[in-house]
């Protein structure tokens, strides 16, 4: 072959490759899903890629959850190196909008996705809305629930005829259940993440909600009797510690380990631990277990929830080509409409049609705790709130000593109030 001939071939080959690359749109994806739900998300991505073979390909990377993830998103968006699509917590959207990290999803975008506000629960839709504009497509809502060991509860005589724990309707009732478990020889009636104040925020916030309390009103933290309501919530948990009814100074992995090893009879944790239990149970390594809505300790049922959503980063100095945007919208739309499998990760799909499907209604343990969707409360809409947000370290610093009996709840609330309002 002559030199000229080789050159020709090379040019043809280059053009040919470029043609192929243009035909298949690659969507760069970042998520923070490292647990059992991450495994399920990888399966969904695979399914998507198979269904869109030759047209769209998701190139996914999983990053460290929390501050590392959000710091990386913020810095990479500022220099135009952010991905095309990313998972985002709805509770972080107020801060993200202030930072200018997210692109608005326009009415045309929603039309292109074939989705609208009618497809989501009002609270969930509201969680991705800031000043009338939407910034993300909700994939799920993920509340916390009460996990329980049926074998241990049965032994203590604390299982009712429907197979749920007794005493879920009042503080006294639930404390009596814990006490009965203790008396039957269980080491920790309740496995509590008492070494991690960030995590306990979810439980404590739920207990505040059960008293109609709010963390933030008119931009002020713990105004009026909300401080007293926080103290009540902390007091319940501190009393359980005092009575030896829950595990002390226990971090997240240790709590799950205490529960799965049968040392703790119950555990309040996120629905994202459902796959852990399902998988262990399938391997024959777990007792009979169940999950129900949180007990009503105060006046009414209320459960903290957040929402995993999909968002498009606002890459500085980089306009997203129309073809790419269409591909990203197709990803978000497909994920939302095919989120039934996501429910096996414990999460409640945000798409109403999926939740109404017979397959979902028959799914356990989701069906048992799905009653809580009516009682979900989200984070206050403030740039200071949200997972791993500014208020986290303040809360945690005072929650940990209070929950372990080192500090008086009222004293903790005074300090929290002072520090939060100084943010």
């Amino acid at each position, binding site marked *: 072959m002559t030199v000229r001939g080789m050159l020709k071939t090379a040019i043809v080959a280059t053009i040919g490759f470029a043609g192929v690359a243009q035909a298949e749109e690659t969507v760069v994806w970042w998520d923070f899903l490292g647990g059992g739900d991450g495994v399920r998300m990888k399966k969904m991505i695979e399914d998507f890629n198979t269904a869109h073979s030759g047209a769209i390909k998701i190139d996914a990377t999983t990053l460290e959850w929390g501050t590392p993830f959000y710091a990386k998103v*913020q810095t990479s968006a500022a220099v135009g190196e952010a991905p095309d699509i990313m998972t985002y917590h709805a509770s972080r959207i107020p801060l993200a909008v202030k930072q200018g990290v997210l692109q608005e999803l326009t009415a045309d975008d929603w039309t292109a996705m074939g989705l609208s506000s009618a497809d989501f629960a009002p609270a969930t839709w509201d969680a991705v809305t800031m000043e009338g504009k939407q910034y993300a497509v909700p994939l799920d809502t993920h509340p916390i629930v009460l996990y329980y060991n049926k074998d241990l509860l049965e032994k203590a005589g604390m299982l009712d005829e429907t197979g749920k724990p007794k005493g879920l309707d009042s503080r006294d009732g639930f404390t009596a259940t814990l006490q009965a478990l203790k008396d039957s020889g269980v080491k920790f009636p309740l496995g509590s993440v008492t*070494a991690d104040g960030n995590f306990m925020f979810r439980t404590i916030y739920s207990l505040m909600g059960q008293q109609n309390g709010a963390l933030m009103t008119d931009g002020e933290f713990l105004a009026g009797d909300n401080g007293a309501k926080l103290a009540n919530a902390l007091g319940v948990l501190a009393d359980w510690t005092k009575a030896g009814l829950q595990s002390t100074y226990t971090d997240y992995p*240790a709590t799950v380990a205490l529960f799965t090893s049968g040392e703790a009879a119950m555990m309040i944790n996120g629905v994202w631990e459902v796959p852990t239990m399902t998988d262990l149970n399938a391997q024959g390594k777990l007792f009979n277990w169940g999950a129900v809505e949180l007990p009503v300790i105060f006046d009414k049922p209320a459960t903290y929830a957040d929402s995993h959503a999909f968002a498009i980063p606002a890459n500085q100095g980089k306009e997203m080509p129309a073809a790419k945007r269409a591909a990203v919208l197709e990803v978000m739309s497909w994920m939302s409409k095919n989120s039934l499998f996501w429910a096996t990760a414990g999460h409640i799909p945000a798409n109403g049609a999926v939740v109404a499907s017979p397959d979902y209604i028959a799914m356990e343990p989701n069906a048992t705790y799905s009653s809580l969707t009516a009682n979900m409360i989200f984070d206050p809409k403030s740039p200071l709130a949200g997972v791993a947000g500014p208020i986290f*370290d303040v809360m*945690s610093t005072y929650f940990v000593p209070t929950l372990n009996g080192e500090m008086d709840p009222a004293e903790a609330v005074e300090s929290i109030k002072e520090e939060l309002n100084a943010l």
Partner: protein
Amino acid sequence: MLTNRRKDALVAAVLVAPFLAIYLLVFVWPTIQMFGISFTDAPLIGSGEWVGLDNYTRLDTDPRFRTAAWNTAYFVLLTVLPGTIVALLIALGVSRLKGRLQAAILALFFLPYILPVSVVYLIWDWVLNFQFGILMHVLDLLGLDRIPIMKTRDWFMPAVGVVTIWWTAGFSILLFLAGLRAIPPEIYEAAALDNAGRWTTFRRITWPLLWPVTSLVFTIQLIAQLKIFDQVYLFSQGGRPNDNMVLVYYVFQRAFQQDQGGRAAAVAVTLFVLVVVVSVLQFQLLRLAGGRK
């Protein structure tokens, strides 16, 4: 041989230029910008309004800054001098060994130093974890109450200090060993001929001749420990971060968690000045102390 001075200077400039360019670009320029940002209310990304000295004056009444400064000072106290002494003692011990045994023992002491901080954290969490830690089972055996070491204010800093010394002593030991080997054996032979005891030999020969290395180790330790962050961050995740606050953690919290670049920069500048002043002062003092002998 004839040399062309001008040509030499040119060659030198060309050789230094790449380093200088990179140094100016990724160190000096950002540092200057950091000083600039510290006078504004900028968020983490982007610019802000000029606020004068506000970010600095508010540090005076900022309780969390005070906690951070105290904890940093406490940590320096707990690690710098003890760390240097521990390393010196181990180096003296290791230097008495010979051949393969010496290499093996040295490797054992050096091993922790090559571990990344996340691994160090995991190892010590397995030891200190309140529910499952090995140490807790030892306490149970001894009939003592379990201690939530990383979750209480009183135990936290001393425990992180111990972990840090365990982790970083290896490097100081190497420096000390090099210093010990540089002392000519004839001096020890002469001392032995003069019937000098072990203690006298150490005090009159080893210690003064090792002084330059000792002051170097001390200075390196001081600067490194003033910048403590990783261990404190990892061990207080979800626990009591604001009680365990140290200066670099405070910079991180203001910048990355609270999105306040200006205030974070002010703390960073304060720490920068502190490190420069303390290390210059300290090195001069050590030199004076050494020069007297």
